Structures are given as C-alpha cells and as structure tokens.
C-alpha cells in the first residue's frame, strides 16, 4: 500500500491530532469568552 516512504502514518496521525486539538481548544476558548455572563467585571 505504501509508496516510497514508509512509516508516514505516524506523521499523519500527529498532524491530524494537533489540528483537531488546537481547533477544539481554541474553539472552546472563543466560545467561553464570547458568553455575556463570563464578561462581568470582578
């Protein structure tokens, strides 16, 4: 199945995991920050 490069799946998995992780955590951050009750002043 593989082409000239072996073991490419490690890199692919790492790349997809990082993309998903970053997008999900940044998404949660963006969502939390944009809720009105979170912005009440101390």
């Amino acid at each position, binding site marked *: *199945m*593989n*082409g*000239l*490069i*072996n*073991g*490419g*799946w490690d*890199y*692919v998995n*790492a*790349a*997809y995991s*990082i*993309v*998903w992780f*970053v*997008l999900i955590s*940044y*998404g949660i951050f*963006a*969502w939390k*920050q*944009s809720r*009105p009750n979170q*912005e009440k*002043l101390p």
Partner: protein
Amino acid sequence: MGRFLDLGLFIIASGLLLLGSIWGLWIAPPEAMMGDVYRIMFVHVPSAWAALMAYTTCLVASVIYLFSGKSGADHVAAASAEVGLVFNALLLITGSLWGRPTWGVWWTWDPRLTTAAIMFFAYAGYLALRGAIDDDRRRSTWCAVVGIIIYADIPIVWFSVKMWNSLHQLQSSPKTMDPAMVTPLRIGAFAFLFAFLWLVRRRVVALRLRAQNDILMMNEGDPR
C-alpha cells in the same frame, strides 16, 4: 438571527472537519510517490488558505477602520489576526510534519515556509502591540496602521525569499492532483473556511462585549 448563524456555522464547520478528516484519512487512496504522508496536505493546505484569508480580512478591516473609525472594524481586525495566527501555527506545524518524512528535514528555507514563519512572528508582534496599549482609540488606530504595514510586507517577503532561495536549492512542493484527492482537499478548504468564520465571529462578539462593558462603566458608580 445571529444565534442561528452561529449555530449553523458551527455545525457546518465541525461536520465538514469531521467529514474531511475521515475522507482524508481513510477514503482517499495513498499517493504514488509519497504514500500516506501526503494526507497531511488535506489539513495543511487549507490552513494556509485560511491563514491568508484571515490576514486579508485583517487588512480590509484595518483600512475600513482608518476610514470610518467604527469600532466594529477594529474588532474584526483583532479577531481575524488572532484566528489567522492560530491557522498560521497549524500551517507551520503540519508543514514541518510533512517535511520531515518527504524531504528528510523538519525545516527548509523554502519560500513558502519562510514567508509563513515570518508572517507568524509579524502577527504575533501585532497582537503583542494590541495587548500593550490601554487607550482604546490609540490601540485601534495604531493596530490598523500596523495591520496595513505587515500585509504590505507579505508579497515583498515572498519575492525576496524566492530570489534568495533560488540560488542554493530548488524545492518544489508536490502538485500531484488525482481527482480522488481533490475532493477531500476541497472539503478541507470549506471546513477551514467555516471554522474561520465561526471563530472570528466568536472573537468579535467577545471583543464587543468587553468594549460595551467599558462604555457602561462611564455611567456606573457615582464619582464621589
């Protein structure tokens, strides 16, 4: 209205991301030369497009702010620069992960890579400047100016790095485009586009809330 838009953007973005990942990881066939590594392309290339789109949005919003003085434009500029930085980081990481198995190095002075890295630091500086100014008028105007200055640099960096690089090595990115591979790439592009839209909207809402809060403080509390 805004609620439905947000929800719709969120559902489309996450659905397309999921679909694109499944398609890219399992349905698309391995590539002849590079085997499975090329699958990184389905998240790598859309990150590049999304980052460039975000930076372009930042430029347009900056120009609009300088002409109109509307704080909404400033919020869009701030939000899109921040979101662009996130996509830029993803671009650099996935690019590195792609480069290691294909070229044997984590990093190379390819014009694309170099330009992306320089833009990352330029926009990191932009956001740092935003954080360093307390006065809101000053922050908006100065950051609008910086947004224009940085964007003007992108083509100059690109051409100069290309010229600089053409002397010692020529590194071409794979441009193989089988129809079976175009579909997941397209899905990825739309997934990142909608993710970008949703994220920018959330960030704009957050910034607007903060700004409104500051203005409310004017009437709050009797001064002595």
